[in-house]
């Protein structure tokens, strides 16, 4: 089993450090950031595979961190983990490219399953990007994501027309 590099971002120190320890006990790499600024710096220094991100934090909030991660590092998958998030928050997070949106607290087995799934997705995205880049149609994974977003918005427009 490949080691997944995970970054946990949450301002609840006790919670996030304990969760990180439990993830490391499951043979994955786990690091902790206690706020959005620190998270972005850590991602810059050492790119994780998956980020588990709280929504409400002091300073840059989770939604903004998500936006910046997906824009600068589209290969990194983000799982939102928040307490009492609204349907509106979930919709917005998914629109911004969150891989999954979970309510806190979560069973460790459920979280690990989602992290593995997100990692698989990251791998598939990278493979697809490489294939297209080889064919000369796309340059980077970011181009693919942007292209997918354009296609999705075209689909949405078509659907709207059909209504």
């Amino acid at each position: 089993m490949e080691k997944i590099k995970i970054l946990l971002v949450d301002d609840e120190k006790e919670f996030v450090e304990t969760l990180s320890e439990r993830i490391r006990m499951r043979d994955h790499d786990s690091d902790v950031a206690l706020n959005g600024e620190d998270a972005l710096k850590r991602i810059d220094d050492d790119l994780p595979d998956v980020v588990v991100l709280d929504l409400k934090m002091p300073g840059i909030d989770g939604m903004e961190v998500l936006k910046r991660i997906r824009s600068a590092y589209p290969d990194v998958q983000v799982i939102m983990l928040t307490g009492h998030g609204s349907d509106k928050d979930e919709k917005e997070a998914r629109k911004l490219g969150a891989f999954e949106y979970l309510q806190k607290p979560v069973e460790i087995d459920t979280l690990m399953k989602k992290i593995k799934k997100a990692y698989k997705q990251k791998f598939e995205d990278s493979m697809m990007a490489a294939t297209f880049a080889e064919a000369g149609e796309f340059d980077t994974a970011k181009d693919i994501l942007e292209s997918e977003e354009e296609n999705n918005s075209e689909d949405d427009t078509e659907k709207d027309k059909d209504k």
Partner: protein
Amino acid sequence: MSNKEIEFIGKITAGVTHEINNVLASIKEISGLLEDLISMSSNESFPYKEKFMNAIPKIQEQVKRGVNLTTQLNKFSHLTDKPKADIELNEFLTHLVFLTERFARIKNIELLLIPSDERIQISTLPISLQMVVYNCVASLLYGSSAGGKIIIQSAINNENYLISIKYDGEVPDNKKLLDDMSVAEELKILEKTISELDGNIQMDTTSNSIILSFNNN
């Protein structure tokens, strides 16, 4: 109470429930870590292993209960976000039954919701409606006997939606359950709120039932 005051109470409650949820999430992770560590140790190296492994799920069960309560309370606090809101009546009543269940449990009364088969979308003043239905349930609980049940039903009828609340069980001393309520000062306040919700209340003291009917236009 003004809308601003209600909104303020809602905001504070939402913030506190969020914090309590964080506390519960930490307890869950810490007990989970203990479980991980203890399960890796042998019976010889940790003589109380079995006792600990039995106790940890109990902590986690209580955390689950706490999370459920804070989630429902958080949901309740968000009813105050806007005075008027679009809601689905059956979900709304499910939420209300959860919040009211404790009062019924203390009196050993079962609170049962029979939702309509169809979804009922309404536009209402959620806090006012919650208060009206709660008061009706409370008035039936007041004179009820242990072992009975209170049944809440929802229905839609042309332009009206209906909520019926009925007590099914014994009434002590053959007293008519709703008599106290029908003369009570609270009824006047309740009727005023119901009228603001564009509805009316019908009470049947023989069958111990209350029917609330609201215009849904």
